Each structure stands twice: as structure tokens, then as C-alpha cells.
């Protein structure tokens, strides 16, 4: 990318130095070749896991509802991961081509968000600390939710999540499915869902996206440091 400094500084995405809830936004930015500055807040080590790097500046960013992730774009300052994703989506023409497509894009993003939120308590809680706990989550909640998405792809037979062109739904789905699949330490679960497997491959083959994923996912953990699961970068299979 040959963005000038002023261009690059126009958009600032602030978040923890993890994938978490910002990663779909990052994927959309990279796919659409949108220059931006990544502002990463580091978490402290255990046992305190200090969040001071963010908390010390939280109230002085000019945000109406201080939170992470945040996005600055010129004098627009916003929070809420999905609102940011949709904003980037509209800017980069990744919200579908019709009002109906737009509604489906948002529905998929919300559904994927629900999925991420369902398993987060496991990753951060006692269940996530044991192999049995993680396997139980994989065999129950994660399998059930993946089936819904697999059925969706089977029913609609589109190349991307909505229609035949990428939308932000692709990036939200990819990231949250990938984050949940990570809990399957046998790496066999995805083979049960051929439509999802194909979808994940399609997204990784998108220009700029595959390269970004390879680089970033080797450096950024899925979850925060205090998580019982995936608070550090997982080894590749």
C-alpha cells in the first residue's frame, strides 16, 4: 500500500492487541484496501492483567460512549464493533447491493456476533481451562451454531455470505467461525461442515485478505490475556 501519511492517519482503529471484536473490521479494511492506523492497547501480564494502558486514556478520547473498539475518521468518533463494521461497509461498498441484501448482511453479522458471545464465557471461564470443558463446548454449542451457518450456505448456494460479491458479513462470519473452530483442538470439526469449509477457503483466497490473515493471526491472539483459552497465539496445526 502506498498511502500517504495524511491518508493513513485519517482512519484510526483502536482496540486491544488481540483479534477479539475488532478483527472483522480489520479484515474489511484490508480487503477494501483502506489505509488506516492500528492503535493497539497492550494488556498487562497475570495475575493482575492490568488494563491501564486503555483505562488511563479512556475518558480523554472524545468518545461519546468510551469503549473498545473505537474508530476515528476525521472528526467522526465512534464505538460499538458492529456499528463500526457497518460504517466501513457503507464506505467501501460492502453492505450488499439492495436493501434486502443489506438486511441479510446485518442479520448475518448479528447472528455471528451472538455466536461469538455464546462461547466467550467458556473461553474466559473455568470451562475453558480444561480439555473436557473445551471439548464439551465444541460438541454442543459450537457444533449446533456451526450447523445453522452450514445449513444457511447449503440453502442459499451463493459464493459469498450474501450474493456473489463480498460484504462485511463475510468477514464477520469468517472471523467468528474461525475463532470458535480454534477451540476444536482435534481440528476435525470443520470437516463435518462442507459448506463452511468451502466458505472459509473462499475468504482466505480473497486478494489481500489471505496475506493479512497469515501475518496477523500469527501475532494477535484471539482473546485477551486473562482468557483461559486462546489468550496467547495458538500454534498452527
Amino acid at each position, binding site marked *: 500500500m502506498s498511502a500517504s501519511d495524511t491518508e493513513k492517519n485519517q482512519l484510526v482503529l483502536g482496540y486491544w492487541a488481540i483479534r477479539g471484536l475488532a478483527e472483522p473490521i480489520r479484515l474489511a479494511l484490508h480487503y477494501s484496501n483502506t489505509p488506516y492506523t492500528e492503535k493497539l492497547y497492550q494488556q498487562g501480564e497475570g495475575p493482575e492483567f492490568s488494563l491501564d494502558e486503555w483505562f488511563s486514556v479512556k475518558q480523554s478520547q472524545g468518545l*461519546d*460512549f468510551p469503549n473498545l473498539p473505537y474508530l476515528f475518521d476525521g472528526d*467522526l468518533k*465512534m*464505538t*460499538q464493533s*458492529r*456499528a463500526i463494521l*457497518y*460504517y466501513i461497509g*457503507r*464506505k467501501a461498498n460492502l453492505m450488499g447491493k439492495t*436493501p*434486502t441484501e*443489506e*438486511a*441479510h448482511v*446485518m*442479520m448475518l453479522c*448479528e*447472528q455471528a456476533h*451472538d455466536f461469538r458471545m455464546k462461547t466467550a464465557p467458556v473461553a*474466559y471461564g473455568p470451562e475453558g481451562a480444561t480439555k473436557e470443558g473445551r471439548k464439551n463446548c465444541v460438541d454442543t454449542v459450537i457444533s449446533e451454531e456451526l450447523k*445453522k451457518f452450514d445449513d*444457511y450456505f447449503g*440453502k*442459499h448456494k451463493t459464493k459469498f455470505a450474501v450474493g456473489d460479491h463480498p460484504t462485511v458479513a463475510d468477514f464477520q462470519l469468517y472471523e467468528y467461525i474461525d475463532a470458535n473452530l480454534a477451540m476444536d483442538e482435534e481440528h476435525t470439526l470443520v470437516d463435518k461442515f462442507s459448506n463452511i469449509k468451502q466458505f472459509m477457503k473462499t475468504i482466505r483466497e480473497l486478494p489481500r485478505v489471505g496475506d493479512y490473515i497469515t501475518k496477523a493471526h500469527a501475532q494477535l491472539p484471539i482473546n*485477551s490475556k*486473562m482468557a483461559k483459552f486462546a489468550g496467547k497465539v495458538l500454534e498452527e496445526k
Partner: protein
Amino acid sequence: MASKDQVILGYWDIRGFAEPSRLLLHYTKTPFTNKLYHFGDAPDFKREEWLKEKNSLGLDFPNLPYLIDGDLKLSQAKTILTHLGRKFKLMGNNERETSLIELLIDQSNDLRQELNNVCYRAINFDAVSKKFCDETLPIHLKLFEDFLKRQGKKWLIGDNLTAADFQVFEYLDHCWILSNDNWAEYPKILAYMKAFRELPELKKYLESEHAKRPINGKMAKFGGKAVQHEEKKKEEPAKTDESEKSATT
């Protein structure tokens, strides 16, 4: 004019997460079928009425609430609200306004989720509820109060209602019903809610059907029946052991 069968909003017979969309439909005088599902009685609170239909409505992700609008079939409360918002031009006049509306919808949803976690608690409800009212809720209220002050407009975004107003009003009202405080420190919020209640398009609905519908499901520890806001006199803090602080991210 579309017939009632054109638009169907399906949800439990509660306010819950669907009421912002119901408010928008009433405000825009859109004929719609308010499809209501009922929980069974205690102790099982069976969901059969919904479960027997769930997989036969043609929804990609069967869930409540759902919206059927012609041949568009949606689930996810926020998606439904913003779809209706776009349809009725209540999503702002420019990009900045649209994003702010979506932000406010998400922010108020965060608050409502926290309220949900309190209201459905069977164990330790009193302590959890007190913590929410004394600690969590004031943080949220101050943010909205300051936001309204800074905006200095009649409604959240400007002088016209947007989809965000239906959600923010509704979810603040759910908190108001739980809270025993008079919110005297939040005059802008009180004025905002009063103005919303006086909207000619919604006044009658708010006083009747809306007021009679509970905010939560039957099985909730709080709000499973339609209740009113009650103010309690501020008491001396009780000398009890502090419960362990829960970790927050």
C-alpha cells in the same frame, strides 16, 4: 396501503427486545400483524407455542423476534429495527447520522443485555440488582445524560425521531421500571422520556397495550409481570458483607 399480512412481527407476548420495532411500526402507522407467542405457566414455562412453529416459517436463523416483510424474512432484533428504520427513512440524513444511530442502538442494547442478566437471576437477585442499580446503571445513565446535553436537541440525533429513539426510550424505560431511584441527577433523560410519552402517534399505545405488557418473560425474577416504577426512600446503607466483585472486561 399494505395489508396487515404484508408485515408480521413475531415475538413473545412481552416487550423484551422487540418493543423498539413495535414502537416504530405504531409511530409510522404501519399496519402489521403483532404475532404473539405465550410461555406456559410455572414451573416449566414451556415454549411449545413457539417451538412447534419455529422451523416452519422459512427463517434462515429461526429465532424470536422475527419479521416477515413481503418475501423478506429476518431475525435479530437490531436488524429488524434498522431494516424498518431504512424503510421508513428513520436512519438519519447522512452517513454520520446513520452511524451514530447504529451506535446508539448497539449501546442501548449493551445496557439491556446487562439488565437481562440481572432480571433472570434466580439466585442472589437482590444483591445483583442492587449492584446493577447502584453501580452499573448510573454509568450508562450519565453517558446518555451527557450525550443529550451535548447534542442539545429534542431527540437523540436532531429535531426528528430516528430508529435510535425507539430503542433508547424503550430500554431506558425498562431500567426505570427496575430502578427505585427518581433519576433526579438525569434531568435531560427525564425530559426526553416525558417528550417521547407525549408523542401524539404513540401516546394512546403507550398508555394502554404497552403499559400492560411485561418487560420480561414469565420466568424472570423481575418484570415477568407488568409492573410500575416505584420509588423507595433512600435508606441508611445496610451493614452487610460486600459480595465479591465480579470481574469486568
